[in-house]
């Protein structure tokens, strides 16, 4: 075992996969000489050369479109956008094109590409460096979507994503990049896309979350156990699409109460879908209303500290919500 940060685990995954398979290439703005704005690709240009680590023009539509076209011709591109907020010009190639490759050719063609996207806030990024973009991809059939929250999960999922024959949107919460550290095995491992992980066992309430918020949920759960003897079970989705509804339902059957916590906007978010699925498939097990603790319906978290704090759910708020739901 070795202790790594999330950014280090991502770099390790890229390095291992590029060593294993010469068809893996990286392209994006600043990924080469600079090593990426967050240094995820640091050292890779030197190790693998400028044909496989390509500094592109600042043009997200073609970064995605070129990656897609290269994937049609035997490569496994890993395009990166610097911030999720800058992704929008590339969305045509992801949602409009890549997601429909297999379906739209009746399985003749496939698009093995992994779109790496630093997303999320809490870093004083304001409206254009904090956005949560997951719902757009979560809504799109034909895509796979990963949103890991630990170094172990990030590395194992990214390696699986690179080997997957379908387009995978890989969401990396930028606040967790260096904040979250954890043990990672020295030997190779893969984690399955579409499988959630119970990060904490519990019996009283199920909390479903992912990304940065997962860590706040764990903090709140420890507090509620210590202060109020409420034993919360925490399900880390890890992948948003395919969504592991089985693990969520199993947990709800055990606890009878469900809370979903995400940083993304409330309306139409991942939590809305999970609520509907649980209400439909585990209705008779529910012993209280399904609670959602989510970002409010404003564009994203504003720049000012007071407004950013007002937007973001935190462990204190989650703790208060745990107590309310437990008391119901």
């Amino acid at each position, binding site marked *: 075992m070795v202790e790594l940060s999330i950014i280090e685990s991502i770099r390790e995954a890229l390095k291992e996969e590029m060593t294993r398979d010469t068809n893996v290439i990286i392209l994006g703005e600043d990924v080469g000489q600079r090593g990426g704005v967050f240094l995820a690709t640091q050292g890779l240009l030197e190790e693998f050369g400028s044909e496989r680590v390509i500094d592109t023009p600042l043009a997200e539509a073609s970064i995605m479109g070129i990656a897609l076209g290269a994937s049609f011709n*035997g490569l496994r591109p890993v395009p990166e956008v610097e911030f999720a907020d800058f992704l929008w010009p590339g969305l045509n190639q992801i949602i409009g094109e890549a997601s429909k490759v297999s379906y739209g050719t009746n399985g003749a063609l496939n698009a093995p590409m992994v779109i790496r996207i630093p997303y999320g806030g809490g870093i004083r990024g304001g409206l254009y460096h904090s956005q949560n973009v997951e719902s757009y991809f979560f809504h799109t059939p034909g895509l796979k979507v990963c949103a890991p929250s630990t170094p172990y999960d990030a590395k194992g999922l990214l390696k699986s994503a690179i080997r997957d024959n379908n387009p995978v949107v890989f969401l990396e919460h930028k606040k967790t990049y260096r904040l979250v550290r954890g043990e990672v095995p020295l030997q190779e491992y893969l984690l399955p896309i579409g499988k959630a992980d119970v990060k904490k066992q519990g019996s009283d309430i199920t909390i479903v979350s992912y990304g940065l918020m997962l860590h706040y949920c764990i903090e709140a759960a420890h507090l509620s156990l210590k202060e109020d003897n409420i034993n919360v079970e925490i399900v880390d989705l890890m992948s948003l699409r395919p969504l592991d509804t089985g693990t969520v339902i199993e947990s709800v059957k055990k606890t009878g109460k469900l809370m979903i916590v995400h940083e993304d906007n409330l309306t139409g978010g991942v939590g809305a879908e999970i609520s509907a699925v649980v209400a439909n498939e585990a209705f008779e097990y529910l012993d209280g209303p399904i609670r959602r603790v989510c970002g409010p319906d404003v564009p994203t978290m504003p720049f000012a500290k007071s407004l950013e704090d007002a937007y973001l759910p935190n462990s204190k708020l989650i703790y208060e919500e745990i107590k309310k739901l437990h008391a119901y």
Partner: protein
Amino acid sequence: MSLAKDMNLPKGLNKQKVLQIYEQMLMVRLIDERVWAMNRQGKVPIAASCQGHEAAQLGSLAASQYLGDCFFFTYYRDLALKFGTGLNEKDIMLSYLGRNGDPYSNGRQFPLQGADLSRNVIQLSNVVAAGMPQAVGYALASKIKREPTVSLSFFGDGASSQGECHEAMNFAGIHKLPIVFVCENNHYAISVPQNLQMTVSEVSERAPGYGLSAISIDGSDFFQVYESMLEAIALARRNVPVLVEMNVERIMPHTSDDDHSRYRDQSEITNMRDRDPLTKLEQWITSHKLTTESEIATITASCKQRVNLATEYAESAPEPEASSLYDNLFSK
């Protein structure tokens, strides 16, 4: 350049090959007219006619077939190219009718949209210019893998306004990729004329800014297209990206849902028949005595018969099973 004046045909062509291409062009015209008529009968939901573009597409294809190792990213007006790659008329009719066995998408997409990988064609969507960065990515992969394949990216003048067109050409120029951008300029983006799309008089004027080699030609002249594409593909194979602009006429409205009399003068509609590539090739063939008028009548009758048989075949073909709705959402 103009129509090859004498029988000094360009390399790769001979009388027999020219006659074969004429027959292909005739077949494409008859299929095109047939699916348009079937649209009016309520049988074909949508048709985008390639009338006027046939020489641009078949000339490009003939050049690519002579030189070998080309991959095509087409767009929705490229029936001639798709037919020319060897797709037979029965499969084409299956596609127009959305029947089981449609080789491009098995009825998921508009006619001849999706991929026909056995004939090196990808056309994923209707979003104009979206295929252009994909063609560039394909060329990038060819170059990285040291493979000889040249990407051919077909698009219209309308697509040339898209940001993705700019981005694709820019990247191809920077990385000196093996790609030929083929602009089939019919001077209309649906109803919007060229002067409301761009200030340049030719799309190719933009090429120097991207580091592309470029030429504008008469895309209704099969021989001019063929010779220009021979040169363009050869350049691209030496990692000199090229833009070939082919000036053509869009003889029919944008699609079967459009009425071009709403935005084009009657005289313009009438006069463009003079630039019909099929008529021009036929005149060349007869004036050079490759065949007689009676032989042309025989060929035409045989082609009509083929189109009739294909139509009957496709009309009696089953639709895709409703249970296949969820198939192939993901690749294994």
